[in-house]
């Protein structure tokens, strides 16, 4: 068991290493370098030399990679070009803001999805199912940038209930953020919740028609007891991995939503640093996003492993 966990963690680290290599090599093989890209027309003479010196571009590529990688492992991403300040300082508040946005979406979205999925499955083809399913299928089909824009239009502009655009400095406090993130959260969690609710629904329906549920009924187990002991544990287990995928996929939604709402998070930073051609920041972001991705999937795998009696005993026997 322990060995397996270590193996998974090792694999995750290898993935991260490859990602870092790819981003680094990608930057290297582009024509020009960070400085010429950033300085554009002014890339000559003293400005260029100064920039090259500052970034240490005069040493060979592998040395720079090693240097950079070691620093990253220590938690230091170097300097951004545009702000000319440590990337860590740029990232810190952004990470926090995005984390707030994502975790609020997840904390609301996932339980909601599970509850909706179970309700639609248990009342399959009855009124609750028909109503909820219509809404979920509908919201599955609208991409975030449309739902976000529509939300701004309806709630913020027509009704005027909530601010449409977040006008906050990136170091705003948590409570300042909270009132501002309602609309972004709704926009982000809509698709995710809808997808997951459908997933949970079909999983529950499948388990409900299994032989062991029929057996539980014939054994005289009361309905709700059957649902909680025999159905849900088996139906939600396969959902864990999908949840992980959905969360990872939610990252993409965060980027789009942040841009639409002008929210000062990581996602907007991605767009900003790309349009500023701030390659060190782009590199740092790639690594961070990849780590989140790998981390979430790792957690999901381990959870499945812990909860599934089949896999558990398989490992013990070995």
């Amino acid at each position, binding site marked *: 068991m322990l060995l397996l966990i270590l193996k998974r963690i090792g694999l995750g680290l290898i993935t991260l290493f490859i990602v870092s290599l790819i981003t680094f090599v990608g930057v290297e093989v582009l024509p020009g370098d960070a400085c010429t890209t950033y300085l554009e027309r002014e890339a000559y003479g003293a400005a260029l030399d100064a920039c090259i010196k500052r970034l240490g571009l005069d040493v060979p590529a592998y040395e720079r990679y090693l240097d950079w990688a070691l620093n990253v492992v220590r938690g230091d991403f170097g300097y951004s070009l545009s702000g000319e300040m440590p990337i860590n300082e740029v990232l810190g508040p952004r990470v926090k803001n995005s984390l707030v946005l994502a975790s609020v979406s997840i904390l609301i979205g996932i339980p909601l999805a599970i509850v909706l999925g179970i309700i639609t499955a248990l009342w399959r083809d009855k009124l609750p199912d028909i109503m909820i399913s219509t809404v979920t299928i509908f919201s599955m089909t609208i991409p975030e940038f449309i739902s976000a824009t529509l939300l701004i239009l309806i709630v913020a502009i027509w009704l005027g209930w909530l601010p449409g655009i977040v006008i906050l400095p990136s170091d705003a406090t948590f409570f300042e953020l909270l009132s501002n993130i309602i609309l972004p959260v709704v926009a982000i969690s809509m698709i995710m919740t809808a997808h997951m609710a459908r997933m949970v629904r079909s999983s529950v329906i499948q388990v409900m*028609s299994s032989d*062991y549920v029929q*057996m539980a009924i*014939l*054994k*005289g*187990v009361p309905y709700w007891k059957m649902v909680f*002991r*025999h159905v849900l544990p088996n139906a939600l287990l396969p959902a864990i991995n999908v949840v992980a995928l959905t969360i990872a996929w939610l990252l993409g939604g965060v980027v789009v939503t942040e841009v639409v709402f002008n929210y000062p998070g990581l996602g907007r930073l991605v767009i900003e640093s790309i349009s500023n051609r701030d390659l060190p920041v782009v590199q740092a972001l790639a690594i961070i996003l990849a780590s989140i991705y790998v981390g979430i999937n790792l957690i999901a795998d381990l959870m499945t492993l812990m909860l599934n009696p*089949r896999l558990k005993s398989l490992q013990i026997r070995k």
Partner: protein
Amino acid sequence: MNEIIESVKNLSIGFNSQKGKQISILRNVSTDIKKGETVGIVGESGSGKSTLALAMMGYIKQGLFPLNGECLFKSEDLLKMSSRQLEKIRGRKIAMIPQNAGQALTPNLKIGYQIDEALRLHTDLNKLERDKKISELLNKVRLPSPETMAFRYPHELSGGQQQRVAVAMALAGKPDLLLLDEPTTGLDVTTQAHVLELLRIIAKDTGTSMIYVSHDLGAIAQVSDRIVVMYAGEIVLEGPARKILKEPIHPYTYGLLKSIPKLSLAGLPASMPGSQPQPGSIKEGCSFYDRCNLATDHCEKNSPDLKYIKELDTSVRCFNHKELINQNNNLQTSITKKSSNSEVIEVLKLKDVSISYAKQKFFDQLLNKISDQNPTVKDININIKKGETIALVGESGSGKSTILKSIAGLLKTKDGQIKFENNRILSSDLKMRNPNDLRAIQLIFQNPDESLNPNHTVEQILSQPLKLYFNLSGEELKKNIIDLLKKVRLGEFYMSRYPRQLSGGEKQRVAVARAFAAKPDIILCDEVTSALDVSVQAAVLNLLQQLKEDLGTTYVFVSHDLAVVRAISDRVAVLYQGRLCEIGPSQNVYKFPSHPYTEVLLGAVLEPDPDIKPKLVAEDIVEEKPPEKGCSFQGRCPRKIGDICNSEVPPWQIGENGNAIRCHINIDELASLQQ
């Protein structure tokens, strides 16, 4: 003894078709279950057996609904009860033992919890008493070490053990009536016999009534006092077990009994033509009319009623049943096979073949070899003659399919050689074989549903091998397809059908036709009749035999069913844990002296005759791995003679009948022991 516990009255159950028509799958079924009695319900798949059994617990599957009639349990109608009331009855008064215990036990809950749940629901015992009771129940169904068993998950038990847990669970509420839906189907022969024995003891000890649903007349014969025969949703025959099995007076039951291969009879069972009508396509008149050889014009337009015949204590639904009375010595006949021609050309030789599933270690992968001291299959030597049918028998896990896969080139051998025609070595890698060898060896699988592409028509399915091996096209291709269909007795109009539009037997025929399309020399048959009903099985067996007589094909026939093997094969090889135990001409393998394992297998066969009881000589333990050294059967052998069996591989001994036995006991001594 005559108190009736459950009574089904005029029950009809149906569903609404897509066109909004009401289609019934059970029609006017009435029967009574008496206290302490075991009633067997038999019929082909789709005849409505399980629907009837479930209705007797007040359970109607989703999509179905009762059309009329009632199920009276102690004079209350189960079909009218609320789910509250039903929860009080299910598990406590009527309990169910499901078909496939492996799937009917909830995977995330421990065995102990699942039994405890039944106890909590249906008894007033406290925690301590319940724990004691769980041990007691597990003991009663004869599971080893009940204390630790309770803490296991369902997947940690073997199929037979899971079935026993299901029995324990059903007994927890001390029910008055036990419903068993195919409780032994899918289990190995020996396990099946053991579970049936257990059920019989329980019925006797506790006085519980049982309803035993099965398609297998052999199993029904062992447990039932009374038998109900169903056909197309109706009861066609009902009466005392002995009467039904020995003097069946309904043509369907008569045909069914004749189509079961029997151990005592060499030769093929007679087959019944046609198949059961689908619900909704039942026309007026007798539903068995299309398949009945006693049918008269009267039967086509008029439906017979279920008529009680006092002197036989039997109810029968047939106008002409009198013709069958006293016809019954005919039951013990079979179609004799033409013996295969006696020229001894050996087409396929397995020489010292070993096969391993062990994962290759890194270095072995580099050297492209497999180092496994204890492979799944070991030391197989079989020479197969042209035109013969050789059968491989053994329980699940004995390596039968594994050997077939290796012959087909789907699985690499570890050691040894497979030689084809003039001693040419066949590569064990499919990609290295030449196209002609690929054509010459064809495979037919157990389950035609999985082996036929559901999106292809029969024409497309059959044209593939014809195009691939013979480059046929156009008119010629079509002519060949029609020829093939004719060979397997299917009409030309089947060409445009999809597999889902065919019955199980028809699908298997298409699979047979596809194999024959390649004009093969050898056909490997992997449990080809196991998924089929007996009447269809008999038809497929007859078809295979006929094709072989016409075309001189060689069959390697894998089956776990000794009676089927007896019917079709010329020679039999018995396998245990991937090692050969006995090999010889089939009439001799079925005669003593036999290898102790063959003896165990033969003893466990269930015959559709209440007077022939299975002999249970060995425990039905499941061994996970073959033993490292000595005799492969040492772990279960009832005749084991001592340490020599554990340490030395037994020698081959040739009996006077020509069968070879691999055992340390002298063959003459075996003969006298087995008298």
